[in-house]
């Protein structure tokens, strides 16, 4: 029996899909079987970021409608054999999802994988509600800016009230990833501090990912940034994946830039 994790954000463009791809690969690199499922029906992206664009034959909607079998619809990653992928439909829209069909699919996947990661669509409409409905845990991705925080807050509220666990009075485990932290901007006070974000959202922090130019290039090439050993963002995802697999990984403070560190060191010698 695996664990089902929904990756949510509320606001769009904060890095949900990038986080899903990197965490999926990171978990697979920890020798756990993992499937990532793109629930963003109508706006499929995950296949491109994983570099599996040209291998998609059947999609999620076809599987749920019974037009395709589950096994042949699942795509194996070229990079790591533990990582599997199920694509979203690009032609349909979010309204085609039905609670019962989602439940059946999630149940089947839960039985055959250690980790099932669902990439939720942005917003809080039906597509989002179906993604979170049968999840055991949620990873909330935010950027350190007010609109992203407020939207995430709303999404967490809906997660607590509309997920199956929430309706039964149980708590859905929630983990926070603060994405695209610019150390320089935090130092100069332009960006929200992590402590303030945690105060507002009141959920467990699972990791901070620094802003990294390499992420966009990695997505464009279909090679998740976690494969780049030198990338700061890639290293951050390695740490988060480790934490999700139950390892004790110390928090690294990504809010101090190299420049800031240099200043501190020079300050000592002055």
């Amino acid at each position, binding site marked *: 029996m695996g664990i089902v994790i929904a990756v949510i954000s509320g606001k769009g463009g904060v890095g949900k899909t990038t986080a899903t791809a990197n965490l999926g690969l990171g978990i697979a690199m920890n020798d756990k079987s993992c499937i990532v499922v793109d629930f963003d029906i109508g706006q499929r992206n995950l296949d491109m970021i994983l570099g599996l664009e040209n291998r998609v034959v059947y999609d999620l909607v076809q599987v749920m409608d019974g037009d395709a079998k589950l096994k042949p619809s699942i795509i194996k990653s070229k990079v790591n054999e533990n990582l599997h992928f199920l694509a979203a439909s690009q032609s349909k829209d979010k309204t085609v999802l039905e609670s019962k069909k989602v439940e059946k699919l999630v149940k089947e996947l839960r039985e055959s994988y250690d980790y099932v990661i669902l990439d939720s669509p942005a917003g809080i409409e039906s597509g989002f509600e179906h993604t979170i409905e049968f999840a055991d845990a949620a990873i909330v991705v935010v950027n350190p800016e007010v609109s992203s925080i407020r939207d995430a807050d709303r999404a967490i509220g809906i997660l607590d009230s509309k997920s199956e666990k929430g309706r039964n009075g149980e708590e859905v485990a929630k983990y926070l990833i603060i994405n695209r932290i610019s150390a320089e901007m935090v130092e100069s006070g332009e960006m929200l501090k992590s402590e303030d974000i945690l105060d*507002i959202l009141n959920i467990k922090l699972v990791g901070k990912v620094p802003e990294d130019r390499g992420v966009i290039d990695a997505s464009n090439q279909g090679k998740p940034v976690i494969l780049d050993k030198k990338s700061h963002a890639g290293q951050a995802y390695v740490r988060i994946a480790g934490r999700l697999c139950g390892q004790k990984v110390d928090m690294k403070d990504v809010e101090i830039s190299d420049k800031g560190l240099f200043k501190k060191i020079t300050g000592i010698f002055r």
Partner: protein
Amino acid sequence: MKSKQYSVKVFETTITDEKKFMEFFDTNYALFKDHLILIQGDLSNSIRAYLDKKSLKFLHNQTLPVGRTRKAIEEEFQVQKTESTVNQQIAEAKIEQLSNKLQNNLTVLDTMVRSGRELDIDGDLLLLNRVNSGATIHTTGNLIITQVVEGALRCDGNFMMITASPKANIIFHGVEVDNELLENKLNRVELKNNEILITPVIKKEINWAL
């Protein structure tokens, strides 16, 4: 006051043929002598003279109250009786509701009020957690919040106790409260002589340098 109540038999008619009328009364005099005669329509002097001669009491063009049977009266009495019991029950329920409200009008919440949530509370509210941006709380009674407020508050009670909340949107009895005035750790907001009065409950924390 001395009074008497009795029923009278009435014979009501309209005269078309005076001769036939007189003949009818002549033959049935024994039957109608105890009746009150009510004549609708025209009444000629000859008929008046005839009725006076026979010493029959009569009325001309009058509407008389129609009597009802005993059964009808009893039914109406019953309806009135049930109506009054129903009214009494409604009044009792209202009083009970009111006393319940007076006894249980304090709501205590310790959960976070997240964005998008709208709380509408009839009575007092004690909230032991924060109110996030995008959330709304309305209370008809007093409002005490022990953590930071970033959402909107609307309070119509006697007083509010609010922490220093620079981002909150606070409306007390329809008047917007200036956030800058809520500078202490816990502030009391109340209405006195139509003016909003803000007094510190817990002053700013002092960090003693050790």
